[in-house]
């Protein structure tokens, strides 16, 4: 059996979620815009899911816009807000945002926008005071992620949100990694727009949402039949949305207990892994997602480590240059101040609700020898011996 420890990349659909989805494929398969029974049943299911998703972040259901995932939500938040408010052309983000925030901003930059990229400290924390200083009269929005997907660091978004509210600037947060994992309250945190994705919380892929605070206007990415209050046209993915709703409902119930259990597992994993020579932890030691651990190993390369572990039946990931579609190593690790070659040997272990202590033990059993083996191949091995 293979052990899956890559829950930050995606998660297995919870059997309870799949069960909730099943009737909506071939039985209650109507188009939610249709007037007849099939359509009205689909519409009811959509609205039920909307309530469940809203409940997880303490928003009103009508403030939830269903999308195809986190990437679309981020694009809609950023471009949609930019198009709707063309008089303000300055956006503030952090250096460790996900590509799905970075790239839309880069694109806007080409179209005359000024993008301020705030640095982070060595733990990956954004300084709220730096946000405050960066806000200008022409600032449209601040987009700072809630928790980082690679290093798990949780940003002080309630403070950042308060600053944005005081300065009358829109605040968007990419909560794809935190949604359903740690508590979110859009009012208490002064969030105007929030992105979430179903497949990170044991829901199906291809569904996500954007929370849009009442009264905020956006220009849609997808124009058409006027679905989702005109902000996201296209026949709604009913089964997918039902699954997302169910996953959100389960998360609401089980989040606290899961977080507690996973934090303990994570801390054990960190403690044991750091016994390996020339290893370190990336990200904040405590202010991090319950399921996230990210290690650096000197003298070895991340992709090779991932594949070695895969050969041992353990699925993990890396922010290594060589694993991705570009040749650059993780911009997140570089932003922490790691050197190119330090960023090279990173290993992300991300736990999900289906992981057990046995999974951690299995990883801990093979990790030291795997690191060792790769160091054997490396020309730099003599240094550490």
């Amino acid at each position, binding site marked *: 059996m293979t052990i899956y420890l890559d829950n930050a990349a995606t998660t297995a659909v919870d059997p309870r979620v799949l069960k909730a989805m099943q009737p909506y494929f071939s039985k209650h398969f109507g188009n939610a815009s249709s007037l007849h029974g099939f359509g009205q049943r689909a519409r009811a299911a959509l609205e039920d899911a909307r309530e469940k998703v809203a409940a997880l972040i303490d928003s009103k259901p009508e403030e939830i816009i269903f999308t195809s995932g986190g990437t679309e939500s981020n694009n809609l938040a950023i471009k949609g807000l930019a198009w709707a408010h063309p008089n303000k052309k300055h956006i503030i983000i952090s250096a460790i945002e996900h590509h799905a925030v970075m790239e839309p901003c880069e694109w806007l930059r080409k179209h005359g926008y000024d993008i301020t990229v705030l640095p982070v400290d060595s733990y990956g924390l954004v300084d709220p005071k730096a946000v405050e200083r960066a806000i200008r009269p022409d600032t449209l929005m601040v987009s700072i992620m809630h928790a980082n997907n690679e290093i798990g660091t949780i940003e002080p978004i309630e403070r950042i949100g308060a600053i944005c509210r005081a300065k009358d600037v829109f605040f968007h947060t990419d909560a794809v990694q935190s949604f359903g994992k740690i508590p979110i309250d859009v009012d208490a945190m002064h969030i105007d727009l929030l992105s979430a994705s179903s497949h990170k919380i044991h829901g199906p892929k291809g569904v996500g949402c954007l929370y849009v605070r009442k009264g905020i206007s956006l220009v849609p990415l997808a124009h058409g039949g006027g679905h989702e209050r005109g902000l996201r046209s296209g026949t709604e993915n009913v089964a997918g949305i039902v699954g997302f709703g169910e996953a959100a409902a389960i998360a609401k119930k089980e989040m606290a207990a899961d977080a507690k259990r996973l934090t303990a597992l994570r801390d054990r994993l960190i403690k044991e892994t750091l016994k390996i020579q020339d290893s370190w932890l990336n990200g904040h030691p405590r202010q991090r997602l319950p399921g996230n651990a990210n290690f650096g190993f000197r*003298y070895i390369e991340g992709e090779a480590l991932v*594949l070695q572990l895969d050969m041992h039946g353990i699925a993990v990931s890396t922010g*290594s240059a*060589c*694993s991705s579609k*570009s040749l650059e190593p993780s911009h997140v690790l570089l932003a922490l101040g790691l050197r190119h070659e*330090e960023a090279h040997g990173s290993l992300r272990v991300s736990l999900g609700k289906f992981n057990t202590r046995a999974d951690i033990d299995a990883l801990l059993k093979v990790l030291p020898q795997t690191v060792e083996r790769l160091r054997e191949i490396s020309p*730099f091995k003599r*240094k550490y011996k």
Partner: protein
Amino acid sequence: MTHIYTKKVLAHFKHPHNMGRIAKPDGVGRVGNPKCGDVMWLYLKIGKNKQGKEIIKDVKFETFGCVAAIATSSMITDLVKGKTIEYALGVTKEKIVKGLGGLPPIKIHCSLLATDALHEAIYNYLKKQGLRVPAQLAKTHERIVKETKVAERIGEHLGEHLH
């Protein structure tokens, strides 16, 4: 199952051939890939064949890099072991890629690292022996020296010096 890597790449990665170092090498090539920071060291032991031609009697490598870097390292040692120096200089990156059954486009540069390391090792051998360095090889050496500055920086940070 379609994998980003071919079965051959994965096999070489899993059990690299000729991994390690040679105690008193006749030639050493030490190169770094400026694009992604991979580093490869290649050791040669030179001998003569029956016709009196110089051949690569033994070859070993050490690589700091991704799956493709390790597999191409292993592959090139297979391709040149026992072969003449002349033949070895003619091994192209295309040949390595072909030998591995293909590489993802973004990983093609890894195979250049392998040929570079081999060329450097041969250059190093020829120079040490005071032998004539073919013009093409000299040019390759110049390019590599320039590029290797990056790798050297990496080596330093990792606490080793390349040259």
